[in-house]
Structures are given as C-alpha cells and as structure tokens.
C-alpha cells in the first residue's frame, strides 16, 4: 500500500491505464469526498441547536458518531480489495483520508460519551471501562486508533520506514474487530445491525486472508 502511494508520489508521467484518472480529477474527487464525509458531523452540529435530532438527541449523537466510525473503518478497509478488483489504483489516494475520518468520528463518539453522557465524571468513566465489557473493548479500539492517526503523515511513514509502518497499521484489522464487538455487545436484543457490520468486516478480512494464502501457495 505504501508502495502504491510512493509510486504515485514519484510523479513520473506514465501511460494511463484504463480506470486511471488524471491527477486533477483525483484531486477533485478527493475534495468532494472530503466534504461529503463531513455531512454526518454537519447534521449533528446544525441539528442540535435546532432540535432536529429526535426525542433523545444525546442518544442520536452517540449512535450516529459510533455508526459513522464503523462505516469509515470499513470504508478504509474496502480500499485495497476494491482497488485490486477494479484496477482503480487512484482509490489508494482516498485511504488515509477515510482512515482519518474514522478517527475523527471515533473522537466525537468518545467525546460525546465523556461530555454528554458522563459529564466528565472521571470515577463513573473509569468504573464503566473496568466493569462494562462493551466499553472496555470500545476503549481498546479507540486506543489502537491513536497511533495509527499519529503516524498517518508522510513524514511519519518515512521516519518509521515502510515495513514498520505497514506492520503497525495492521492494527486496523484488530481495532475493526474490536469496534464491531463493541457494537454487538451494547445492543439490547436485536443484533441485526451489528451483524451487518460483522458480515461486511468478515468479507473484507476474508478477502485478505484468501489473498495472503494464494500468495503463499504460488
């Protein structure tokens, strides 16, 4: 993956393959997706003062930010399989942005828990993290996102070296699993929604397992 972005960054004009986009088109696509990704946040930001977030607005904030964190984690994990299947290598340019959006929504999710839900009650938060498995695993997932967000810059990739960087960023597989379990464990009875996320994650991780096995047998 790091190799792919390095290839683009070298900037040598290459003959464009089918499915390839001009740098300008890629930049535009990225800008549009960047703005679209802010949509869920904008909805909450505008909806809260206008009382448009339903009967229990705090629950809406908590659920929306949590859901979008999972969506962005899964979107980030979809980039590589999609790129391989379609040959649209420009998709790789979106991956860091999607990953950082996952972190952004996770930060909002955690913030809404600490501020809106617990109102900075440190003792209650610590008790929750220790006593409630779904909060424990959610906290673990968030903790794993931090080093990935911090090392997302080009400078950090260079500092760590491609190999180390890739090894570190494999954490995303673990944190994605933790994130889905976090959702699964919090629902009261109807597991339809978390099951959908679990299924998508299984497909995305399964693709990688199959790809790795194929490589080994070749």
């Amino acid at each position, binding site marked *: 993956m790091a190799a792919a972005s390095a290839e683009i960054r070298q900037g040598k004009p290459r003959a464009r393959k089918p499915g390839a986009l001009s740098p300008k088109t890629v930049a535009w696509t990225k800008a549009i997706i960047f703005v679209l990704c802010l949509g869920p946040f904008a909805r909450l930001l505008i909806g809260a003062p206008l009382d448009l977030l339903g*009967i229990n*607005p705090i629950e809406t904030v908590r659920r929306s930010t949590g859901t979008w964190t999972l969506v962005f984690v899964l979107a980030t994990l979809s980039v590589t399989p999609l790129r391989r299947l379609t040959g649209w290598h420009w998709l790789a340019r979106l991956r860091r942005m999607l990953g950082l959006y996952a972190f952004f929504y996770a930060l909002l999710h955690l913030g809404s828990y600490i501020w809106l*839900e617990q*109102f900075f009650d440190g003792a209650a938060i610590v008790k929750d993290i220790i006593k409630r498995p779904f909060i424990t695993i959610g906290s673990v997932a968030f903790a794993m996102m931090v080093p990935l967000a911090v090392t997302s810059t080009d400078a950090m990739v260079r500092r760590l070296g491609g190999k180390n960087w890739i090894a570190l960023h494999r954490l995303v597989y673990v944190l994605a699993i933790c994130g889905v379990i976090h959702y699964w464990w919090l629902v009261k009875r109807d597991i339809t929604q978390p099951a959908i996320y679990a299924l998508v994650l299984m497909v995305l991780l399964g693709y990688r397992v199959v790809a790795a096995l194929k490589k080994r047998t070749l």
Partner: protein
Amino acid sequence: MLIRRPDAIKPSEITPDSVYLRRREFVKAGVAMLAGATGLVSAGSVEAQGRGKKLAGARMSNFSTMEKANSYKEITSYNNYYEFGTDKSDPASYAQKLKTRPWTVLVDGEVKRPKRFDIEELLKLPLEERIYRLRCVEAWSMVIPWVGFELKQLIQQVEPTGKAKFVEFVTVLQPESMPGVRAPVLDWPYVEALRMDEAMHPLTLLAVGLYGETLPKQNGAPIRLVVPWKYGFKSAKSIVRIRFVEKQPKTAWVKAASNEYGFYSNVNPDVDHPRWSQATERRIGQDGFFSPRRKTLMFNGYADQVARLYTGMDLRKFY
C-alpha cells in the same frame, strides 16, 4: 350569597396542569409547522395521526407527581414496543395498523369468577389521571400523565382463589400488523407478570388513556399495565389476557436473558444492568444537552409506597 367562596369552584372547572402545559405543545407545533413549511423538517408522523378520543371525568390523584410531564409528542414518538420493531421510532411508524376493536380482556386462571371483559365496559369504570415517572431499563426516563384505574378494582371483580400467587399479563399478537414479530427477538406473545401483592398495590394501574385521551397505539392501546416503581418493560402493553397462577410465570425478558432481566426488575440504582449502570438516568426532553444525568431513585422514587413489599428480600439476588 353573591360572593363565591373559593371552594365553590368545582374541580372540573380548574384547568388541569396537563392541559395547561399543553400550551407549550401548541407553540411547539406552530414552530414545527413553520419549520416544515420552510422545508427544514418533514411534518412529524405523530401529528399526522391525529389523537385519541377524549376520556371524560378522570379524577386527579394524590399519587401523581408534581414533576413536569413530558410532551405528548415525546411520549408518543419514543417508544419500546418490539412487536413493531426495535427502533424507538418504529412503534409510532408502524403501530397504526394494530386492530384495537373489537377488544376483550380475558381474566381467568385461579379465580372464582373468570370473565371476558369488553374494552368498552372497562372504559366506563371510574377513571383517574395518574402522573407517574417512567424509568426505562435503558437508563432514560419520562413523566407521563396516564389515565386509568387501579388493577385491584378488576382483580376484586373476579375473586382470586387462595392458589393465586402471581398475575400474568399477555400482550396481543397480531402478526399481520406487527412487522417486528417476524424476527424471534423475543418469545411472542409478550408476557409479563407481577406477584399478587404487587398487582394489588394501589399504585399499579391499568391505563386506558394518556393526556386525557384514549391511549395511542404505540403506547399500548387500548389497555396496558403501568407499574411505576419497576423498569418500563414490566408494564405490558395492549393486554388481551390476565391470568392468575400459582407458580411464578416465565416472562418475556427473563426468557430472553435471565442474567440481565429479573422477574422483579424494580428500579434500583444500586443494582446495575450487567452491561450498563442504573445509578443515573436521562430525563427525556428536560435535561439539557450539556447537563449531567440525574440520579435514579430507589423504586423510582416510590420507595415510601412500595418498599414494604420487599422487606427481608435480597434485592441483589431478586433483581
């Protein structure tokens, strides 16, 4: 005498709080319409459904709380009624297909005079308005002006035998109007139960109305149980059968997850749900966006009335 003494004003001439407070609703509805007209929000489904029939002559009750009641809209658009779906908005969206007439409630089991009551007959009983706190097991709460009568009144009519130790409540099952029952989320039909002394307690209500009108379908029309010192799920909705039994019945949530939901399910800030704390709660619509949750009270604030029912019981064991 020409000068009217204050006590000459009949109670019926005083605007009840619940009606008075509805001015806010009127103002809010106006704002919502304006917002709708400007395309900001779609018109709420609750307003579009129209409201229930007026229930005349409900007496005020000393059991009512003085706390500010939640709005009609809050009470009718944020519901748990899993037969219509597990999302809080599902009951308001889908419950309108529920057939509530004809409706009878079969009262049988360990009683001398089993009887099938017609809903119209029950609506003619002397009704009271009871403004109760409702505490959901999910740690949110509301204040709701129910209209109904004490379950005790019905129980006395059927004369339970000495064998009647528990009362079981069975909720209606109408698969054709209930999209939620297609999935085995709970063991349908929904069954709840009380111990005999809990059922006979004067706080235990059979509600037929809300805000002075017949119950909306998403709130358990045409008749539901209200047990204000227990978590909301104990208060079975749309009741078709009340059965007196000797053995403690298997209730829907106990069957679903007995480690999380007990038979008693009394509101208790000291006994947490295994997955979340019950020490605090969020009062819907009243605690501001940036205000801390409020402390949950023992027996939902009804300890003075009901604590004696449980003397000597380990409430950690019998959660």
